[in-house]
């Protein structure tokens, strides 16, 4: 598979400390396992790499994957707590609608819930970029501070 990273996306990766190879691994995993969610031509896949979960959002066309963004979080995704409303996303693995909801997240021995995309039948959850990049990142910092 060929991968396309625009200059803007490379800049995002650099700011977030993500490696292109890791993002490629997420896309390859999502494509080979269908463990990804899809909305129109948008694909969102995730993979645990070391201590972090890396997400890649991308489009696929003729064997080429164009990465539109990538992000990560350190919290471990646990079980679904609430599912509230439909979204445009579909889980490619089972064809089920993905819903907006909440998932338990574990970090440094603490479990708290956070907003997420959820697919209740499989029990899978995904964290959206706006959360991973701001509120969850801040929460991870607060956990570290408060645990100190």
């Amino acid at each position, binding site marked *: 598979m060929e991968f396309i990273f625009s200059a803007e996306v490379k800049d995002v990766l650099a700011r977030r400390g993500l490696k292109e190879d890791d993002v490629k691994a997420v896309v390859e995993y999502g494509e080979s396992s269908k463990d990804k969610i899809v909305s129109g031509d948008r694909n969102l896949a995730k993979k645990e790499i070391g201590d972090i979960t890396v997400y890649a959002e991308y489009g696929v066309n003729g064997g080429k994957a164009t990465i539109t963004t990538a992000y990560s979080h350190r*919290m471990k995704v646990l079980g679904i*707590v*609430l599912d*509230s409303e439909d979204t445009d996303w579909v889980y490619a693995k089972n064809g089920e609608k993905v819903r907006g909801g*909440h998932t338990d*997240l574990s*970090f*440094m*021995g*603490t*479990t*708290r*819930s*956070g*907003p997420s995309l959820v697919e209740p039948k499989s029990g899978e959850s995904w964290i959206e970029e*706006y*959360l991973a990049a*701001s*509120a*969850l990142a*801040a*929460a991870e910092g*607060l*956990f570290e*501070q*408060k*645990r100190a």
Partner: protein
Amino acid sequence: MGYEELFPKNDVDGWHANAAKRFASPFVDNPHDRIDVDPIMLSHAAVACGFTIRDFYEKPELGIHCVGYISEMYDLLPVTHWFFSLPWIRELGMTLEYKDTLPPVPTGPILSSPEEIEALEPISKEDLKKGTTLPMFYNLYDYVSEHLAHTLVPISYGFDLVGAPAELIGVEEFIMYTFTEPDLAHKLVDTFVETSIAGADGLSDKYGSAMLIVGSVLANNDIFADEQVEEFSANYMRKYVDQSFRRGAGPQVFYHLCGNHETSYKVFRDKLVWSPFTVMHVGYQGPKVFPGELLKEEFEDVATCLGSVDTKLMINPNPKAVYEQSKELLLATRDAKKGYILGNSCECPPYTIPGNLLAMTRAARDYGTYGTW
């Protein structure tokens, strides 16, 4: 002379360090000495330091310094807050008047026709920066950063998403509109919510994050049925937090369901956004304080629970009554899955009797220590 010259420094290494560990404990599953007490301290802090209610609201830096200082005496939270319930409405055209015995109150409605409501537009972040509220909070948190840095939590207020826009046409008129002209009522609330989101955006721009405090105050069961509380309040609380998070605010959220939420408490769990640092507070169930058991049952999976000692008791010369109610709440709720904090059913009244605050912390020391419950 700056206000900071009026106060000795907090005992940062002693009291504050311990209070900070206690404050963190419910959020990080790391039990410290006892359950925390947060009586929602506002202008009582000024009164307890010899100033007036008016001073508290008219001089925010003085007010917040009073909160930071007096929290040590009562052994309360290690963080400071300062607010009143009508942020952002000056930018929407209202005038607020300072009073000797009350928070600032609006001088009167400014909109009277459907056409005027239709023409209302949310205030952008850029315009808020040129207004009154956002610069006031910038000044406030800059002051805290300089003089009370150990207590700093930048907070943006969306409080009260229904009551504040109702003031634009008058509260009684607004309530009528929710029945007769619901689209106009929605237009008012949505405009205020969009403006509040821009405010949270502006605050998180400057400080990198912003705790959100949002309430359902006017929208309670004394006035509205559950369906209306959901339609006009819960849905917009969700929008406020969701959209503010998308602009970089959070991760802390404090939900304050003020007044009587006898049955309407049920509409919030599936609607609201629950971050890892969320506190849920419900004031009353009918005329009685909201039961600890019910608060725990409904919200312990998603938030830290804040209990409600009746504010009426706080001005009653009977510390034992405060102690007994605190004890009852602690026994019912202290083992909530995501932690518990003992609080008042609303703002700590300005003329709270100090012995009653001591009764709350005494009860927390007696019944809120972590053990085998």
